[in-house]
């Protein structure tokens, strides 16, 4: 067999780069994953340990690679739309929003105001669902079991709204290029308002369980610290960046959809540790509720679909459009050659870039902290690998 087909073991590759002191018996290389409950998917982390202390890590990713960007080049613009839902499948609505808006920009079309409002409501509901799933699983990783049941119970209410709106709960494909496919169902506004009233006290409930819980605080405070300048250098965005004290949110910095119409705050932390990231995400859920309430109150009447041709042929050109997904900056770089299929679609996934910071965050920490840090980064491997 040719040498290029023999598998190079990442552990071996890792060991080859080691410093000479590695032969010391106190150091150990440990494989975490790809099948490990706290890696939230198929992520393999090779840990270099000195007892309980982490000396270095290497991530091995790609187990879920499906070639989404290649598929895009062989589908029409509209046909590719459902595929984006399957990247970050816990925030499918955000993925769809980013893609639709990018293609709309390329087409020089804008979705009608009513569609924009529907988009904001669903996207913010999805942000809440994504944060709920994050909180439940993150807390479970650290050893708190109850929040998992609470968050999944409440997430169900969001998914029910999605189901009633478009028939799907997870990979919703709720938006179309040019607007929305579906008008809101009878009672949509009431359902959303009811959810807001129902969910607000639930956030307090989560906080009661965790915020001052001694075990939670000890497991998260001072763990996985990432400073603001480090975040910027590593391209880390989303709640992780904001927890490091950088007040930056694309919904404010470069507003898209209807976000400029709403009042909300950008929660930030100071220490950039796992605890602050928890506080930021919890505060974000409250802000999302605030946005949803305003959007439901002010939802305009009118068309939900812009006038776009049946066959989409964006003019020759390229565009980069990004949105604030629950995990950070989700960007689409779309190149059109004037035909019905995109010439190239590049997805800039927040999880992929954020995961790169894992090494910096866990070096010097304990093995148990690795679990906490993977949880706090809020990665979805479907998006990391695409």
């Amino acid at each position, binding site marked *: *067999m*040719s040498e*290029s*087909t*023999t*598998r*190079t073991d990442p552990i071996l*590759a890792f060991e080859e780069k080691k410093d000479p002191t590695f032969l010391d018996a106190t150091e150990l290389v440990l494989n975490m994953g790809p099948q490990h409950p706290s890696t939230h998917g198929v992520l393999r982390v090779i840990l270099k340990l000195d007892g309980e202390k982490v000396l270095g890590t290497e991530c091995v990713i*790609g187990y879920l*690679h499906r*070639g989404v960007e*290649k*598929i895009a*080049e*062989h589908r029409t613009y509209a046909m590719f739309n459902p595929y984006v839902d399957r990247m970050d499948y816990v925030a499918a609505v955000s993925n769809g929003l980013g893609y639709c808006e990018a293609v709309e*920009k*390329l*087409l*020089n*079309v*804008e979705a*009608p105001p009513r569609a924009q409002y529907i988009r904001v409501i669903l996207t913010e509901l999805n942000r809440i669902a994504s944060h709920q799933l994050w909180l439940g699983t993150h807390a479970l990783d650290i050893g708190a079991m109850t929040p998992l049941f609470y968050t999944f119970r409440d997430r169900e209410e969001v998914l029910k709204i999605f189901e009633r709106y478009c028939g799907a709960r997870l990979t919703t494909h709720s938006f179309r290029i040019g607007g929305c496919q579906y008008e809101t169902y009878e009672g949509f506004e009431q359902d959303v308002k009811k959810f807001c009233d129902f969910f607000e006290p639930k956030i307090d409930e989560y906080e009661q369980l965790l915020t001052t819980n001694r075990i939670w605080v000890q497991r998260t405070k001072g763990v996985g610290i990432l400073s603001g300048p480090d975040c*910027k*250098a*590593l*391209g880390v965005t989303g709640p992780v960046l904001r927890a490091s004290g*950088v007040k930056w949110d694309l919904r404010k*910095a*470069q507003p898209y959809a209807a976000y400029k119409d709403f009042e909300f705050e950008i929660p930030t932390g100071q220490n950039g540790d796992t605890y602050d990231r928890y506080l930021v995400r919890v505060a974000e859920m409250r802000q999302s509720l605030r946005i949803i309430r305003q959007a439901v109150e002010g939802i305009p009447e009118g*068309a939900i679909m*812009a*006038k776009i*041709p*049946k*066959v989409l*042929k*964006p*003019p*020759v*050109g*390229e*565009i*980069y459009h*990004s949105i604030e997904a629950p995990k950070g900056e989700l*960007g689409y*770089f779309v*190149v*059109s*050659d*004037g*035909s019905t*299929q995109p*010439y*190239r679609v*590049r997805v*800039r996934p927040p999880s*992929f*870039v954020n995961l*790169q910071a894992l090494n910096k965050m866990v070096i010097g920490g304990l093995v148990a902290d690795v679990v906490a840090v993977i949880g706090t980064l809020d990665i979805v491997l479907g998006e990391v690998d*695409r």
Partner: protein
Amino acid sequence: MADETKGSDQPAPPKPSEGAAAASEKPAAPPAATPPAAKPAVPAPPPKPAGPVPLPWESEMVTRLRQRFGSGLQPFTYLGQNYVIADPSIVAQMLQELRDEEQFDYCVDVTAVHYPKREKQFDVVWVLYSFPRNQRVRVKTMIAEAESAPSATALWESANWLEREVFDMFGLRFDGHPDLRRILLPDGWKGHPLRKDYGIIQQDQEWVQINLGIESGQ
């Protein structure tokens, strides 16, 4: 396969002079498949816009960059987004300049586009963002298959994995990258899937047979 039809009419890179760019864009415009939709009463964009063209981009930053790099760069603005096409020879200094002097402190993305019909087959694209200025700029350079692009890992740590992905998917090399290995595909894999000559159902069958013990992954 669709490759052949897709590879033929690649987006024309904007011409240096704006007049030529405008002229070159026009012929592609006539709409084909769209039924002549009745003009709606509500204000809506025309069913088939002829397509905006990249315009030359002028700003203080561009003037400063011009002073430094002369004619090696062509700044454009398209649909409100600014980008600079730079010569491969100056792109490394330009990225450095953008980070150090123009406050572009965040490297959002590094990616590439393959144009097989072109002499310099690859576009390498850096998407940069500046927190203090709240501005984006894209830097683009064209390189041939045998050439390599400068690595931005020394400027922005985020470029590390992004460049590895470009290497994995396109086979482009980045000079100065500390650890240029495949990232999404297995190390022994042959071929670079996002090149246009790589078919959509193509796979490294040898690898699949040896490592997975199955005839085909399809």
